[in-house]
């Protein structure tokens, strides 16, 4: 075994012991990968988004000399050619709509209409293939046509190519740098699948009053799909948790009553379904989830890693600590506007408050975007090593 492989084993153990709520030798620390790495190079964000080899080179240069355990995030969540090949209107990428150094954005619309509910509920996959894809992709306007078939092949090929590159990059980083990936696979809460991608935020929030039964039935219909999607995108891996970016379950989208009735049951079913397969969920609670912590505590022990973004950290520790691994501690705005000294103090506080008895991973609480400063991220990682020894 090479030194780097030994290092990988050591870090993998540190991270997974914490995920199991145990006390490793040190507090595992996470490197937040994001668009910020590009601004320290002469490469545009557009180039980094499209040219995966180039962006991997940039990342390699940044992480080479840093001592951290786990890497989370990406320069780009999606590879644009996958969408460009289908003439897909879901995302705006830098260099086409936005200037070449802007991040990508999602274009939210009611891609699924209220009258589509029954057909969707009866067979979500069929509805997506015959109704949704033609609406969001110019190249797929006429399903079954030669053009649409070619577009489907192009899109699938691009997806496979990109996933393959990511897998190989992950392997390279594990082998050459001893770095562990934070997650494998991806899933969502059914309510978010419906609200983010299909009905839109406004659409689903109005549906709660106008057609609540349809919302419930649609969320239930999505549950098996989101379990399957998690396991497929993780290629069956159960050693690491499945990434689940969560949106409309954050305060103050829904009242506790609505949350309990519409958001939680189907999401809980996905988490429990995955847990039954041995797969833990990376509960990426973007925003503030404080009012719902007691309900989240009903989940089976250790079935999630709870990520603290704007949630009250002390309360999260009190309600979830010991039974679920907590992840976070450093606010994303501090990484942008703070000084290395302030970041260091924050890391010390976070480890004291959250990490005392294990079951804690030190990380940025939310998505770190292009605004973060390199010196603050380096300070976060170094401080974690300084204060994070048990």
């Amino acid at each position, binding site marked *: 075994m090479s030194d780097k492989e030994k290092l990988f084993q050591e870090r993998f153990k540190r991270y997974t012991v914490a995920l199991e709520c145990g006390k490793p030798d040190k507090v595992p620390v996470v490197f937040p990968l994001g*668009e910020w790495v590009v601004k320290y190079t002469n490469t545009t964000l557009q180039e980094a988004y499209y040219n995966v080899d180039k962006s991997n080179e940039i990342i390699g240069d940044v992480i080479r000399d840093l001592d951290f355990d786990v890497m989370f995030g990406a320069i780009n969540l999606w590879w644009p050619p996958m969408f460009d090949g289908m003439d897909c209107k879901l995302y*705006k990428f830098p260099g086409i709509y*936005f*200037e070449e150094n*802007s*991040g990508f*954005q999602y*274009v939210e619309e009611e891609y699924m209409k209220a009258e589509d509910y029954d057909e969707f509920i009866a067979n979500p996959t069929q509805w997506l293939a015959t109704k949704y894809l033609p609406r969001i992709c110019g190249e797929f306007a006429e399903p079954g046509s030669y053009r649409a078939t070619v577009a489907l092949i192009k899109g699938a090929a691009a997806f496979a190519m990109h996933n393959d590159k990511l897998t190989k990059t992950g392997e390279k980083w594990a082998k050459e740098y001893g770095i562990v990936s934070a997650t494998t696979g991806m899933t969502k809460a059914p309510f978010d699948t419906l609200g983010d991608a299909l009905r839109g*935020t*406004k659409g689903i*929030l*109005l549906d*709660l*009053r106008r057609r609540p039964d349809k919302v419930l039935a649609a969320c239930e219909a999505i549950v098996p799909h989101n379990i399957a999607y998690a396991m497929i995108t993780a290629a069956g891996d159960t050693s690491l948790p499945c990434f689940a970016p969560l949106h409309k379950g954050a*305060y*103050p*989208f*829904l*009242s506790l009553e*609505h949350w309990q009735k519409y958001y939680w049951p189907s999401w809980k079913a996905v988490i429990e379904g995955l847990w039954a397969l041995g797969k833990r969920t990376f509960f990426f609670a973007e*925003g503030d989830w404080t009012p719902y912590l007691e309900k989240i505590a009903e989940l089976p022990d250790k079935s999630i890693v709870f990520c603290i973004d*704007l949630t009250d950290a002390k309360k999260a520790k009190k309600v979830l600590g010991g039974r679920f691994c907590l992840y976070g501690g450093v606010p*994303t*705005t*501090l990484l*942008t*506007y*703070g000084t290395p000294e302030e970041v260091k103090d924050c890391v010390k506080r976070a480890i004291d408050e959250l990490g005392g008895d294990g079951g804690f991973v030190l990380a940025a609480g*939310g998505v770190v*975007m*292009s*605004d973060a400063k390199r010196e603050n991220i380096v300070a976060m990682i170094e401080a974690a090593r300084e204060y994070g020894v048990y």
Partner: protein
Amino acid sequence: MSKEALSKAMAELEEEQVIALVKELLGSGVAPLEIVKALQEGMVEVGNRFERGDYFLSELVMAGEIMKGAMDILEPHLAGESTEHKGTIVIGTVRGDIHDLGKNIVVMLLKGAGYKVVDLGVDVPKEKFVEAVKETGAPLVGMSVLLTSCQGALKETIEALRAEGLNPKVIIGGNYVNETVKKHVGADYFATTASDGLKAAAEVFGA
């Protein structure tokens, strides 16, 4: 059947009842502006309930939709009638960001509270903010931003206003803004909820 009942139905988010009452009041000869006022009162109550934690975003979005339905009926009757307002506010989501949920909610509550709101939309370049402030003389400008990566645009836009000698108060709003961001970009207020925005407006306009 009364204006009070309409305000109450609005506050309770009783969509069908609001629409029926608007039609009824119009039919019985009540001045359209009086009806708008009753709806606004209901909307103020919606804002208060949000502030108290009784209502959530889902309720605010519903309130906006009901208001829109009511205004669709009322607007043809309002032509030519001058509406009084407490003052003008220019608002928009800054350059590079296309999120509008928070902005739309605060616009709705500000209108409900009796302000004239000039909504510039999303992905608004700094030049457009400057132009709108020059045209309207608005004493308060709202800049919305969700993505932390677009917070730089807040600073640029505020600097552009100041460079033109324009000194309206500036409030920044969004899920990830705080005191640090406010100071960094040179804003006067920050808001993470629509009700914080309303409080700042009340302070600026002494309303």
